[in-house]
């Protein structure tokens, strides 16, 4: 995004990937941190929802020692040293690098063409003219520069105190490779098991997708992709990865981060109620829903999807408006779960207090130090 790639015509824009998946997310609403085990075991339980061509994890509360710095997880395809040098030159020019290292991996785990993955903790180094640019925008544009202009380099994640670990393989293999169980703790874990139909082999193509501290894991196919993408281009988001998920991530960024709309409203943009239903709502809601559909029509996400989106302090799950993809929510004490299948939750937390299935288009919002997730319970079954 923010970096336009010129094609001779739209005919030459690569076709988007089609994929479907298994999803799982867990958050401690008091901010207590915990290890990777639940996420790994849960996603392993729904192994058949993926096909071994991609898995990944997003972890929040990951780097307390460096929590004031942007944590860049960067992969270098084919362990390309030139790409690493170029990237580091670029980083040195635009950031203060506080600390950097290779992300430790387990040499016992052999995966498909693993890249070199490093992490850099950085602070923006702005020039005179750039002082007015907010840090987030500054970081975003530099990240996108790396993604689009430095061959073989790709930024997995770029938020503070969080990180994304992903790659080609079943998620439990990715977890083993990065030794997530044992090395890391966080208060939100989301995880994705991928079932793509595109040519595999690229670690950057796995989920979660991330900008700053926002991550998206997604299941389904967005049939309105072409409409959504062209609308987002007007706001300088250019889809370079050609996946549905990318569109979803940018739409979330536009509406939530840049326009400041809460997810409760954004849900009604992505997955609006049918006109038949709107017609029977009380006057005020009718007006709101009608206006939302009118203004944000190009961001209706049409087609089957479930997403779990996370950023600091918040995780939410949402399905399309006729619930063509599954989601189940569960809760036990301070833990709230979202998953493609109930069994995955129960497998890691057999004595759940609550388990529920929201209506299509009704978000389950899990917030730090709040019980907002229970709001969706009342509307669900």
């Amino acid at each position, binding site marked *: 995004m923010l970096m336009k790639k010129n094609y001779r015509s739209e005919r030459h824009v690569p076709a988007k990937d089609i994929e479907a998946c298994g999803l799982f997310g867990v958050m401690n609403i008091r901010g207590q941190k915990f290890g990777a085990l639940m996420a790994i075991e849960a996603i392993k*339980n*729904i*192994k*058949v929802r*993926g*096909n*071994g*061509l991609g898995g990944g994890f997003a972890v929040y509360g990951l780097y307390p020692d460096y929590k004031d710095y942007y944590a860049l997880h960067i992969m270098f*395809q*084919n362990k390309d040293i030139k790409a690493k040098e170029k990237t580091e030159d670029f980083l040195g020019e635009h950031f203060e690098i506080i600390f950097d290292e290779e992300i430790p991996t387990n040499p016992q785990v052999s995966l*498909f*063409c693993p890249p070199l993955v490093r992490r850099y903790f950085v602070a923006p180094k702005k020039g005179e003219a750039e002082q007015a640019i907010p840090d987030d925008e500054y970081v975003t544009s530099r990240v996108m520069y790396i993604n689009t202009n430095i061959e073989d380099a790709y930024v997995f994640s770029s938020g503070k105190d969080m990180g994304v670990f992903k790659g*080609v393989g*079943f998620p439990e293999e990715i977890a083993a490779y990065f030794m997530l169980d044992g090395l890391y703790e966080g208060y939100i874990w989301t995880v994705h098991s991928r079932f793509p139909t595109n040519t*595999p*082999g*690229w670690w*950057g*193509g796995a989920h979660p997708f991330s900008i700053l501290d926002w991550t998206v894991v997604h299941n389904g196919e967005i049939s309105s992709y072409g409409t959504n993408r062209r609308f987002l281009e007007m706001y300088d988001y250019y889809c370079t990865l050609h996946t549905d998920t990318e569109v979803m991530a940018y739409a979330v960024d536009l509406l939530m981060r840049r326009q400041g709309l809460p997810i409760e409203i954004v849900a009604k943009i992505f997955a609006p109620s*049918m006109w*038949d*239903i709107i*017609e*029977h709502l009380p006057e005020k809601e009718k007006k709101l829903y009608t206006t939302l559909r009118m203004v944000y029509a190009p961001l209706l996400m049409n087609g089957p999807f479930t997403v779990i989106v996370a950023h600091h302090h918040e995780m939410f799950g949402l399905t399309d408006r*006729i*619930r063509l993809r*599954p989601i*189940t929510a569960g809760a036990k004490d301070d833990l709230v779960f979202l998953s493609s*299948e*109930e*069994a*995955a939750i*129960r*497998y890691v937390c*057999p004595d759940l207090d609550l*388990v529920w*299935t929201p*209506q*299509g288009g009704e978000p389950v919002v899990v917030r730090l130090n709040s019980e907002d997730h229970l709001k969706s319970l009342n509307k669900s*079954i």
Partner: protein
Amino acid sequence: MNNLNVKFGLRNMFLDGVRPVSELVQHVNTNGSNAYIDALGLKHKELNDLLRETALKGVTSITVQNVFGQRYIGTRLYLPNLAKKMEIKIAPNPGNDLGAFLNGHRLIVYGNAQDGAGNTMDDGEIIIHGRAGDIVAMSMRGGKIFIRDNVGYRAAIHMKEYTGKVPALVIGGTAQDFFGEYMAGGRVILLGLNLSKNERHKAHYIGTGMHGGVIYLRGRVEEYQLGKEVGIRALDSHDWEIVGQYVSEFSSHFGFDPAEILQEKFQKLLPVSTRPYGKIYAY
């Protein structure tokens, strides 16, 4: 994007690493015509291999514990020569397609079921002491399903019946949207026992495209929640007989008082036509 000359090939998430039955014997404990299976850590096919193997040994009652998401329980038991149909008790959380294509056996779930329970079920019984997910009883053509709590989207979709073979689905709670969509036959009873007084059923688009069968609905529903292919009727004595019979069966499974359930108002939803789309074409 990957310039190396390496192909990923294919990984089979269902079958890779499936162990032969001989390596799984410690999961089964047989005692005469009864057996106990510990499903912990078993893959979908492994559990179903064991169930089939156990059935072929003459066991007729199996208890399966520690089920977390294993799919297709009951599906592999198409064994026409079996002298007696099986009874399988399952806990706590069988996976998708529970009893898909089920051929006359009885599955009892102590816990929740997921999506696709009773998918294209042919005959038998599924009793769920909990809730179930989406497309429950999809294309079901025979047998009975009892679910104590709620069901998800598109329950009873395209259920059908023919000559005497009439499937039945009884749901104690409420349902989500597209309930009874495309129904072509069978009896569906939605009791709404967990709705509060005067609370509407949750589903919209109830019975869209319905062209056969009947839905008996207990509790409130607004006209606009119904699909345009169904009409509301009052129950006649024959209907009450049917409802009474299924409600008492339901109650005996889950410990309710049928009289109390039957006190509430019931409505009958019937398709307006057996040919809802007969007039949309120009020949």
